């Protein structure tokens, strides 16, 4: 299934660095995020976009990961040639990652907020 089924996400920007949070809808899926949404996988997913390193920070209390991606915003938000200079649309692209969840019972439709 897609990461979008079990997690939500928001992108932020500072200078030429983008950060993307990945937050499990249900804390039960946090171990799957930890195991499968690695820095290496995120860097590979954004191979056309990220020129620098990808760091991952873990926040178990809120079942979330935070990815910090260097050299991602076209030389910096204030000088980028990109249509989306802030990289705000990157979170949606990350939610397109494929995730393996063991059983159908573990799948849980996200509820509206």
């Amino acid at each position: 299934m897609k990461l979008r089924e079990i997690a939500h996400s928001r992108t932020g920007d500072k200078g030429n660095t983008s950060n993307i949070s990945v937050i499990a809808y249900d804390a039960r899926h946090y171990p799957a995020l930890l195991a499968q949404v690695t820095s290496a996988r995120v860097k590979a997913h954004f191979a056309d976009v990220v020129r620098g390193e990808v760091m991952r920070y873990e926040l178990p209390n809120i079942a979330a990961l935070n990815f910090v991606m260097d050299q991602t915003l076209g030389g910096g938000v204030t000088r980028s040639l990109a249509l989306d200079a802030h990289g705000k649309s990157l979170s949606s692209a990350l939610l397109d990652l494929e995730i393996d969840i063991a059983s159908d019972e573990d799948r849980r439709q996200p509820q509206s907020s």
Partner: protein
Amino acid sequence: MRTIRIGSGAGYSGDRIEPAVELADKGDIQYLVFECLGERTVALAQQARLKDPDGGFDPLLEARMRAVLPTCAAKGIKIVTNMGAANPWAAARKTAEIARSLGLPKLKVAAVIGDDVFDVCKDRDLPLIEINGTIKTLGNRIVSANAYLGAEPIAQALRVGADIVITGRASDPALFLAPMIDAFGWRMDDWAMLGRGTVAGHLLECAGQITGGYFADPGYKDVEGLARLGFPIGEVSEDGSLVVTKVAGSGGAVTARTCKEQLLYEVHDPTKYLQPDVVADFSQVMVDEIAPDRVRIAGGRGTARPETLKVSVGYVDSYIGEGQISYAGPGAVARGKLALEIVRERLQLTGVRTSELRFDLIGVDSLHGERLSQGHDPYEVRVRVTGRTESLTEAVRIGNEVETLYTNGPAGGGGAFKSARDVVAVASVLLPRELAAPSVRFVEA
């Protein structure tokens, strides 16, 4: 335990105004904070100030103040804002003038000055963080240098009776931390409290982004009433704990999910959120829904403040030229690609000098590049060509080469658009904090 309610009336300079009016009218708040200063805004405002010594503050200052001052004055709600941009003193005088014109001459208006560290910085070899070189190597391309000030001067202004405090560059969370310091008397070395207060300020500073804005994803994360989104209220207690809520009946939602997304927004290492007043630690924060549209936040921490202040340096970077044109119907993508190839060749043939060029098909691959953009051909596409140049004249030529596709390019091109602009970019340096000297100045009634 004492509690204050702080409303967040703007998340950026162009933000909606009615939600702030709603907070003042119905939010039962004691403080209303407007965060309106983006990374680059001070540099652009500094250019405006050079043209007009009484200008250089937020263009919506007057509209916002006129909208909220009568209610805030009647209820004793104090206002804190960074709408001073490059000229907080002129913004304070303007605000006092607006207050008088509204029949509210008793309001005390204070400006926090001293964030402008241009003179201190310009000859120092401070290394730039985002780009190569030092501040000195930028030479006469520097437009502005502003230090992110902390909460102390704002809190001091509130303590001596300011009704309205207007800053230039200040850390965004500090605009919220200052009212807490004012209300609870926290010491400036009480790192635990300053850390908790910074978590609260960080959550509130983007206004609608914690009440359901920048969040909705139909079928996954549905949010009601985004056209009349309510802005957040932070109920902060003297132990630094926080409940995030909003005006009953306003649009949007405050949920654990909206709070978690905002907690990590623009955060790098969550254990080290560097602020002028404290290094805050978000890593142990807990988020609990305690009632509809009421979320409790606990677990923020803090350690001693950094020895340096972050300084935003605005500089003239380059020029950008741009052109766009649309194609639709069968073969739209093929004609769009042909258009891009034609412009690429034209820019070479006619010798346009660029240091960087970008060719996008909006609707196909403009946001994330070719690899992530596979799928079916869309009904319509928009060609976009942008390039970086060293002069405006060169930048203009890029859009021209897109526009001439009308009569020289593929069939059926429509809606051409072109632009050329100068780019004032922003980089950062770290300044020893003793080199900045913030102070507070009141407008005499």
